[in-house]
């Protein structure tokens, strides 16, 4: 009799699917959770729902055509992705781009980072139950997308870079609009703190949740603001400067706590740094051509090139192997989202399901970036 009762009361782990269609996974990510009550024992991400074989498609395209495919990976920092491909091709061609191009690329790259962080801020609030932040984040992002639309011709997938420079020169209104935006956003950024950073519910749900130590961040290959919140100094802009980052003064934002709130604070502080980088450059755009002329059919010499840049999520790398043809022999993209996702199981172990939403939100996952 006793044996039967203990068998009846024995608890067992059970599995549920979070996703592929779940509002807080921000795309088609499927997480198989093994649960003990409400406590998570194991998280297993199943990816591949939005795989489009971009790396394989690159092998059939010319070097100019590859650029627009990287828009579709991490769509929130698409300009920076484009820049990485162009820098890698320029490295292969040993092509020196004009100073004007470098400065414009840096300004638009920082604007992209700002718009990505604004969207992340809004969505992070919405994941934790505050719909207001979503609307406020998009309100400020709208001014940046207007700048992109006027200068680059598209709001999200801009495709403004070409190997050798830019597709066309900046619009005459570009500097004025950017200055307007900086003045506007400097007033609005403290609102973000009032609405969310100091909110008691938000703080209780993020402080001490999802801890990641510096050693674990390094061993899982986590990069970007998620790793800098654990004290891992990994800013590519600082350590391996590209474009015009060696000419500007900015500090790398570092935190040591490694919890959700530290990751949140890192991104908020990065917005201030981005604003200061744009302010330093916007009045000093040098005159000159916006493109170094290249041949209509670009052929890289035989060899291998790797270029890494800092996107809004971390280190994005492009590795090109060329056999001397007009198409690359092989292209490999190192995307930050994929490595950041690998640390999710370690961070979410032994926490509640509601905490998993906060952890995923502060990792800032973009699913097409993970699947490619």
């Amino acid at each position, binding site marked *: 009799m006793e044996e039967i009762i203990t068998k009846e009361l024995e608890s067992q782990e059970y599995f549920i699917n979070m996703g592929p269609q779940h509002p807080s996974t921000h795309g088609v990510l499927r997480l198989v959770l093994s649960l003990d009550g409400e406590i998570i024992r194991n998280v297993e991400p199943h990816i591949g729902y939005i795989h489009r074989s971009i790396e394989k498609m690159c092998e059939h395209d010319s070097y100019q055509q590859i650029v*627009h495919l990287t828009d579709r990976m991490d769509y929130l920092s698409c300009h920076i992705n484009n820049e990485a491909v162009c820098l890698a091709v320029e490295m292969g061609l040993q092509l020196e781009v004009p100073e004007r191009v470098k400065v414009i690329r840096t300004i638009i790259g920082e604007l992209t980072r700002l718009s990505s962080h604004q969207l992340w801020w809004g969505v992070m609030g919405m994941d934790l139950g505050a719909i207001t932040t979503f609307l406020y984040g998009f309100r400020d992002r709208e001014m940046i997308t*207007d700048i992109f639309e006027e200068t680059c011709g598209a709001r999200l997938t801009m495709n403004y870079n070409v190997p050798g420079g830019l597709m066309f020169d900046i619009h005459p209104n570009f500097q004025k609009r950017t200055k307007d935006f900086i003045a506007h956003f400097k007033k609005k950024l403290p609102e973000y703190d009032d609405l969310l950073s100091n909110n008691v519910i938000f703080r209780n749900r993020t402080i001490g949740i999802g801890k990641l130590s510096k050693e674990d961040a390094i061993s899982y290959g986590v990069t970007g603001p998620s790793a800098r919140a654990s004290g891992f100094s990994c800013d590519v802009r600082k350590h391996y400067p590209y474009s015009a980052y060696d000419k500007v003064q900015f500090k790398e934002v570092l935190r040591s706590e490694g919890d959700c709130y530290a990751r949140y604070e890192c991104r908020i502080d990065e917005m201030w740094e981005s604003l200061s980088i744009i302010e330093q450059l916007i009045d000093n755009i040098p005159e000159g051509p916006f493109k170094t002329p290249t041949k209509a059919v670009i052929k890289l010499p035989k060899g291998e090139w790797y270029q890494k840049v800092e996107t809004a999520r971390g280190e994005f790398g492009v590795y090109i192997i060329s056999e001397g043809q007009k198409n690359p022999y092989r292209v490999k993209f190192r995307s930050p989202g994929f490595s950041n996702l690998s640390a999710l199981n370690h961070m979410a172990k032994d926490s509640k399901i509601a905490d998993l939403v906060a952890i995923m939100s502060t990792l800032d996952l973009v699913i097409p970036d993970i699947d490619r």
Partner: protein
Amino acid sequence: MKSIINYFKEIYFGLKSLVTGMRVTGHYITHPKEIITQQYPENRDTLKMFERFRGEVVLLHNENNEHRCTGCSACEIACPNGTIEIINKKVDIDGRKVKALDTFVYHLQMCTMCGLCIPACPTDAIKMANTFEHAVFDRSKLTKVLNKPGSKLMDGVK
């Protein structure tokens, strides 16, 4: 004793943070002019897109129904997705057989609006239009022929 003070302290700062947040949202309720929402289908007449906005590819025609496309297929080669198809024909000019454009087929459903075809064109025959309302009920309607019926090459374009 200390725990009781901490308890009330937490309640005080918690309420204060909520009131700070409410003050921000309250500001926008009382200042409706700072709200930037646009009522989209209603403002269609006044809505103006930016000049460089990439909506779809169009072949430019002048008032005499003439275009600048020579049928060189440079845009077809530049396009990464096979969106543009150029079909050529042979025409007699002064007894010589010359290649000329027959149909300029444009598959809007495959277009990613990357804009690579525009700088590729040697005669500036095509451009990106600002239209953006592309929804249709039948997929076949998205395959368009861009050169108008009866149109011919503009004089002096090579």
